[in-house]
């Protein structure tokens, strides 16, 4: 057994996290910053942070992930990291010539109290930022929140530091992407196009983290929300935040700064959440839903109806991130499945409240988030109440193998399969992909375990 020491008996833990269902803020900030066109993310901390984040994102995307670091040494940790960041800004503009540097902090720079606003201002005052270029920042100490809140903080930084209200409203809607894949962001743009809605999507990692092989490495790939587009978000007539944890804070910031009203939606994963997204986007943009989208929806409902017998009552354990888990659990309930165990390391009452609303239809479910809501606990829950399906990131494969449970990779990070960055999970087509994956996993298992006389040809 790979996880041979995991006990069935659940005991409350106060000090020890085992097999976390989250990671730290800075990686989220780095990922978000890659969704700005011409931007080089910068990690203000020890070299290890930057190296670890780049490695993890690279393993997940199998793509270049460029980012620089302030390379703290002990001296910088004692005397402050200002000199390191100033030198980094100078070096980066000289050597890599980005449009924008997006700096995020780390536990190290936050513990010693480095103030990114003050240091970036000094960089500007000292003439280290070339004309027309920008340095933005976000505070992302690793001892607060999770990778998801780090993402939210950087996206909020984009809104706060780019958006300008010129006083003239534009006929455009901001769509603020919660932490989702480049494939999902591409799909959101496709829906907007099909609807005829004029949107600014930010951040946008499509055409950044799914770049084509051309024989040439484009240091700044063609994708990403441009500085101009980010600036214009202040003049948009409305914002849709896709995710109450990873997107809403940026919408609030835009409302505060530029009086752009907003609505927070669940990420459009599964049927019901996509319905709400399409409704809200068509309303905000003042456009009608075209028949093609209705047909697309119909195809998803059709498959669910046709295959309903295989979903019914199947118990599912899930772990992952708030904005994905909320609509995914709702989708499982729409499929008549039973989400029995749900764990997320990301803390927050907003998340708890929204998940509990969704779980009103599933009073039997175990749900825990935040401190010590880890995969060790999830595994223990599974040992006490076995499940038919496990959904989560790659680390789930160890539980799936030990307990012999069908497993679907979903979330971050996925280190051992491809597809997530190319095929969307959002929208009706994304729903269809999820349904196909779920059915595939369940029916492969049925085929594997069926006695010979009950081995079915047609299913």
């Amino acid at each position, binding site marked *: 057994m790979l996880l041979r020491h995991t006990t069935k008996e659940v005991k409350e833990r106060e*000090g020890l996290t085992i097999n976390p269902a989250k990671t730290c803020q800075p990686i989220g900030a780095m990922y978000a910053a890659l969704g700005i066109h011409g931007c080089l993310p910068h990690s203000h901390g020890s070299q290890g942070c930057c190296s670890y984040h780049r490695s993890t994102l690279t393993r997940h995307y199998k793509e270049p992930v460029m980012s620089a670091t302030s390379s703290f040494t002990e001296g910088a940790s004692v005397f402050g990291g200002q000199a390191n960041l100033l*030198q980094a800004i*100078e070096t980066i503009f000289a050597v890599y010539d980005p449009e924008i540097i997006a700096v995020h902090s780390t536990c190290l720079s936050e513990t010693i109290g480095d103030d990114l606003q003050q240091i970036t201002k000094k960089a500007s005052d000292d003439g280290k930022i070339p004309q027309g270029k920008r340095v933005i920042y976000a505070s992302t100490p690793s001892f607060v929140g999770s990778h998801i809140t780090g993402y939210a903080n950087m996206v909020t930084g984009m809104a706060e530091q780019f958006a300008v209200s010129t006083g003239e409203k534009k006929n455009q809607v901001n769509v603020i992407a919660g932490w989702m894949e480049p494939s999902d962001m591409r799909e959101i743009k496709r829906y907007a196009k099909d609807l005829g809605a004029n949107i600014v999507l930010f951040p946008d990692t499509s055409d950044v983290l799914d770049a084509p092989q051309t024989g040439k490495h484009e240091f700044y790939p063609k994708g990403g929300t441009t500085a101009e587009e980010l600036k214009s978000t202040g003049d948009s007539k409305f914002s849709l935040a896709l995710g109450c944890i990873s997107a809403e804070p940026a919408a609030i910031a835009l409302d505060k700064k530029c009086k752009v009203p907003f609505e927070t939606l669940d990420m459009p994963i599964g049927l019901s959440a996509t319905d709400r997204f399409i409704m809200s986007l068509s309303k905000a943009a003042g456009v009608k839903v075209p028949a093609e989208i209705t047909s697309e929806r119909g195809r998803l409902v059709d498959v669910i109806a046709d295959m309903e017998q295989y979903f019914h009552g199947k118990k599912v354990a899930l772990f992952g991130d708030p904005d994905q888990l909320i609509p995914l659990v709702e989708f499982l309930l729409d499929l008549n499945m039973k989400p029995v165990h749900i764990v997320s390391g990301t803390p927050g009452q907003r998340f708890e409240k929204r998940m509990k609303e969704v779980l009103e239809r599933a009073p039997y479910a175990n749900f825990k988030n935040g401190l010590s809501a880890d995969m060790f606990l999830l595994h223990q829950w599974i040992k006490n109440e076995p499940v038919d399906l496990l959904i989560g990131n790659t*680390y789930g494969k160890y539980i799936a193998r030990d307990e012999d449970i069908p497993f679907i990779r979903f979330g971050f990070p996925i280190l051992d399969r491809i597809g997530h960055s190319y095929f969307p999970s959002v929208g009706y087509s994304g729903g269809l992909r999820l349904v196909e994956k779920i059915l595939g996993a369940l029916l492969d298992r049925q085929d594997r375990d069926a006695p010979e006389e009950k081995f079915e040809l047609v299913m």
Partner: protein
Amino acid sequence: MEANIHFPDPALIKEELINKYPAKVAKKRSKSIVINDPETIPEVQANVRTVPGIITQRGCSYAGCKGVVLGPTRDIVNITHGPIGCSFYSWLTRRNQTRPESPEHENFITYCFSTDMQEENVVFGGEKKLKVAIQEAYDLFHPKAIAIFSTCPVGLIGDDVHAAAKEMKEKLGDCNVFGFSCEGYRGVSQSAGHHIANNGVFKHMVGRNSKPAEGKFKINLLGEYNIGGDAFEIERIFEKCGLNLVASFSGNSTVGQIENAHMADLNVILCHRSINYMGDMMETKYGIPWMKVNFVGAESSAKSLRKIAEYFDDAELRARIEEVIAEEMPKVQAVIDEIRPRTEGKTAMLFVGGSRAHHYQDLFNELGMTTIAAGYEFAHRDDYEGRQVLPSIKIDADSKNIEELKVTADPELYSPRKSEAELEALKEKGLEINGYEGMMKQMQRKSLVIDDVSHYESEKLIELYKPDIFCAGIKEKYVVQKMGVPLKQLHSYDYGGPYTGFEGAVNFYKDIDRMVNNPVWKLIKAPWEKAETESLEASYVTQ
């Protein structure tokens, strides 16, 4: 030796690599970029601070300590004391394989343990939470040992992990608890973490169990982390040769082995950079000499086995080792014969690690490939130029912060395995005891040696030299491949391996053949793009 491949003028290349840098940066980098001459090895600036913002391959001290050295241990509960990230990123990502004796034996490698430090722990201190975590780990798993790894905030807020470890060790009674001050900001790279790990393992583990080790030829394997099963292959060869492995530092190791390591008669060092401290300290305290070996490359493996036979100076062992080599080599040669016509004359670049960029050149040589540029990510000058430069290495402020243990001969356990005269005799026979000649002596004249290569320099090198293969790590993998050049990961082996010993060499040859001759590199251009280029060329010709 001059390369049979035509190099561009390295002086011009060097100029190209640094001319875009701001003046101060260019000046600094130029000392780390040298044109090799194996006869009069030039000085390389190494183990110095990375220029902030330059985009480095390097990681941190924690990665070197917890990730590299202690990560491969299977029966220690390794708890990361800090915010969640560091433990998460070092969770199973280094591919340290391990094979517990039975399904009942401990294996914690698949687990990730963290104190998940929160803001209030940073403000009010995290020692209390750490002690609770240690107690919870003990109650759940009853491990033989618990190790604590400090992340950046821990040192800054003044948590004393060593005091907490000592207190908990006394309280628990039957569990060895010890801590490492391997905060990410210590030193200038992973290297500091290796040193800190060596110190901790030496202080808290080695020497705890003095039961005589079994066998006639008792060896410790140092600096082998069983990535992709490398240690398994070396274990196979050792067993076949009749060599008795006492302890491995630290691939496929156990606490019991390491505690008993001082009963061996020879330490062989694979990765000089990460573990040479242990070799030196064990020699001083217990009288065990160390010898640099290399099990990367079939010829090198054979050579290393012969060196071991020389050391033990035993006719039977010598004969057995020759038998093993005679048995293994034909299988290796058969594969070389098949593959070499497809790899001969191709070029490689290696920018990785603190030892791999040196040793993998042997495998490329066996394929008839030339290394035109190489460098380490976190090595020191001795790894480039050889240990004879050690006395001339200046200790700077960053190195001074890393503890240098004061080691003396153990009053009871010190017993020199070889007398001074015997050691002299071995040296005369050409056996390098406690020595390492470094990478540059083996590299061709006019090849480039670059320490802590930056992203910019890597791209330029590829553009200017167009190598057939580039060796580095995961962060570089897809960047280089986007340029149409295959990249072999020499940290994770692209999830293949083993690459050590004889079977490993065969694996490597096949992988390199597959990579440099893969049809995909010819499929990059779409047919219509090709047609466009051709018609352009055609119109140019007609003009």
